[in-house]
């Protein structure tokens, strides 16, 4: 864990009510086109948003997407070995098989999966027809987004005073690398 200096600790406590869920909490993510290189950027585009709510035993995910360059084919919840590193699929989401639409699903969580949600290790991945089915190496997909505890966001070019959301400071973001199979 990142250890906070005493100066920022009180600030963090003030923020904790929003960003540090216990068991019942809401989560959010913005879905963006990933992974990108000069080949995949020709077939990968779009954006989306999703939220998740959980009582610690079940999780309900809802979201929408738009702007894909080809029809969506499937959507999954993945678990990361740590915050921000791609991992393995654990749940299938219902998805509109079009270039825009919605995703949804409700799932029972194991205790490990619930912990993964709380520690920023769950993310959504949407695949599409043109996104590489078998990427030469590494993870594939069309849109990704990591689920983090609900936090204040502002639009582009809008200044936010004082605190800025940084996952490893504001959430119990997992940083010790663990095999995703544990979840």
């Amino acid at each position: 864990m990142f250890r906070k200096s005493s100066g920022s600790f009180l600030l963090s406590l003030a923020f904790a009510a929003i960003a540090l869920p216990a068991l019942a909490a809401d989560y959010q993510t913005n879905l963006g086109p990933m992974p990108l290189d000069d080949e995949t950027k020709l077939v990968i585009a779009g954006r989306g948003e999703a939220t998740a709510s959980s009582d610690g035993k079940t999780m309900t995910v809802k979201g929408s997407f738009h702007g894909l360059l080809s029809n969506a084919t499937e959507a999954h919840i993945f678990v990361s070995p740590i915050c921000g590193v791609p991992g393995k699929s654990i749940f299938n989401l219902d998805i509109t098989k079009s270039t825009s639409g919605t995703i949804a699903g409700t799932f029972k969580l194991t205790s490990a999966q619930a912990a993964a949600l709380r520690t920023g290790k769950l993310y959504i991945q949407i695949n599409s027809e043109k996104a590489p089915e078998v990427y030469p190496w590494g993870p594939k997909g069309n849109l990704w987004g990591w689920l983090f505890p609900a936090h204040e966001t502002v639009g582009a070019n809008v200044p936010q005073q004082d605190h800025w959301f940084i996952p490893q400071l504001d959430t119990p973001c997992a940083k010790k690398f663990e095999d995703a199979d544990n979840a």
Partner: protein
Amino acid sequence: MPNKTILLLGAAVALGAAALAPMALGQGASGPFTQAQVASGRQAFDANCAPCHLQDLAGTNDAPALAGTPFMGAWGKRTTAQLYSKIATTMPLGQGGSLSEAQYTDIVAYILNRNGAHAGTTAFTPTSAVQIDTIANGRAPAAGAAVAQNSTRQESPAPSGQAPAQSNFARAMAGQRVSDPGAFGLPNRFGLSLEGNIQNYVPVTEAMMVNPPDSDWLMFRRNYQGWSYSPLKQINAQNVGSLQLKWMWSMPENGTMEITPIVHNGVMFVWGTGNTVQALNAGTGELLWENRLGPAPRRPGPGPSTEETRSLGLWGNNVYVNTPYGYLYALDARTGKEVWKTHITDELKIPGGNGNMFGGSTGGVIIIKGRVLVGMTNCGRNGDDNHCYISAYDAATGKRDWKFITTALTGQPGGDSWGKLPDNMRKGAETWIAGTYDPELNTTYWGTAQAKPWRRDLRGSGDGATNYANSTLALDPETGKMKWWYQHAPGESLDLDEVFERVLIDHGDQKTVMTIGKPGILWKLDRVTGKFIAAVPTVFNNVYENFDQKTGKVVYRKDIHDQKVDQWLSSCPGPEGGHDWQATSYHQPSDALIIPLSQSCVFMLGNGSQTYFEMPGTDGNMGRLSAYRTADLKPLWSFQQRAPFLTGVVSTAGNVAFVGDFDRVFRAVDTSNGKTLWKTRLGTTVQGYPVSFSVDGKQYIAVTTGLGGGSPQAKPGTMLREVHRPPNGYALFVFGLPDDK
């Protein structure tokens, strides 16, 4: 003529020595290409790829090695068709698809051949798909070297007076596709093209450097402390909205430009690509003199990060210029005439480097007590006795005073931090950003880059910290003797430099040096002792399993520690860095350090393949500008946007700060809250270091537009598909208030 066969084989062996045994499978197998393709592929490679990847395919900085273990690790399990697709769609950098299909297939054939694949009788086509490690082993065959021996090719940079043989114009006239037909104007005449006669030039003194006149911008970050802060306040938060263009000056196209205009007594000195140095009337934009030092960029179009410099220096009646190929010039500031010229490494050639000189210099200079201090880059190759260093030269004569090697050698303090590596394998720790200086402590502060190779598994240093890489160095500017060092990222392994600006800030009796590197950690050290004071992460970082804000100690993730060249690895930030060369500004009135930040992540396979993804929690915004109070590292304000910032920041006593971005926007923000007060859109990416100065009582803001460079250009170039920029437009813009204000 030296035996090139031996030289090339030597280079290839050096690159691949560690992994030859496992690669025996492919040795002797014939590849799906012909010898004729290899021969013409060599020429196409030298013309289009070698400027970044080097002629021996060893790679530089952002351009990965295309031979040996690094290449085989990244590409061995993929097919020749995938290699073709990668190269044809992405190369030359920023100009993917600009070569003919035949050129791309020949280049692939040449690369395969240089990695041990033998030519056969079947010509390579874009769809020829063979797993690469079944035909190549990472070791150049004698046949490949023979091709090299027989081919005619240009050594090192084009010598002064000669432009590269094949310009885009010539290629276009020959019916080839050219991606940037507007940028074929490589200069072909060098020397003093306009001699100046500046009257009443005021020599720059030590006293001026310690206390710069308000009207001037005498050095890289304006003052010795590296603040990038101007005490001018005619332009302020209330009137900046009426800012207007006063004059504009087109700069040499092609290559890479990230320069700082330097202003003294109404004269502006600026460096352009091809090492074109110009003096301009800072109030009117009139050219006063021009000296084209040369050589021209190695190829048309935007260049790599190794072909630039970031700042000039002034002292006495001279202007000082360090060039990418390691030369240091003194020019007469009044006429532009050369006063003296020297080479940082005495024109030492890289053993096995095909004539390339050992060491370049891109970071600008700092002048202290009559000495010109300069750092090095591109000096990190294994297998010879050379090392990167900081060196100092007599400003009057160019004679070298001292040099300080930035890697700890056997027997030196920290010399036991390289595992069992002999001294000739301790490379890197480049200094590609000029240092700062505390006159009271008579100490100069420099940041260093990571050890090379930057991957731990290729470097062979085990768990060693690799001092003095990724450190802050405190040196005596008169002797080069080290006073202390502090290593921010021991054993770094992800191309995450801690090399950027060292900003000197006092809080009462506490004298601090602050810096932020690619990992995005903002550091505060005691600049008297080098002791850690505090640090705070500014962006999402999952590189460190543990970062202790009380001690500054970092612990890398286990999978990073255990990385292997043939397995992909992910990091946030990626090589674009949470912070890069786009320097901070210290706004003294509010004690705010205003920091350009970048937000992207990477997957790396070896160091040869990179794929990017948005930094989690950023909603796809790659750029962020944040202000932190330096007394307690408290965040004051932030805003983010899709395009990353590609300039440093300048702030002023008028409580405004200026910054430019990848998507051509140059803006002024309120230093108290980050609100945008004024913005305009320029011709291409706003890139460089903006400055503020005054002439005849009128305050101006100057900034450059330009292209080229490393990760800060390449990553958004891939990730921001909606941003379209012209491939030219290198220029200098000067803004001021309307004349009646």
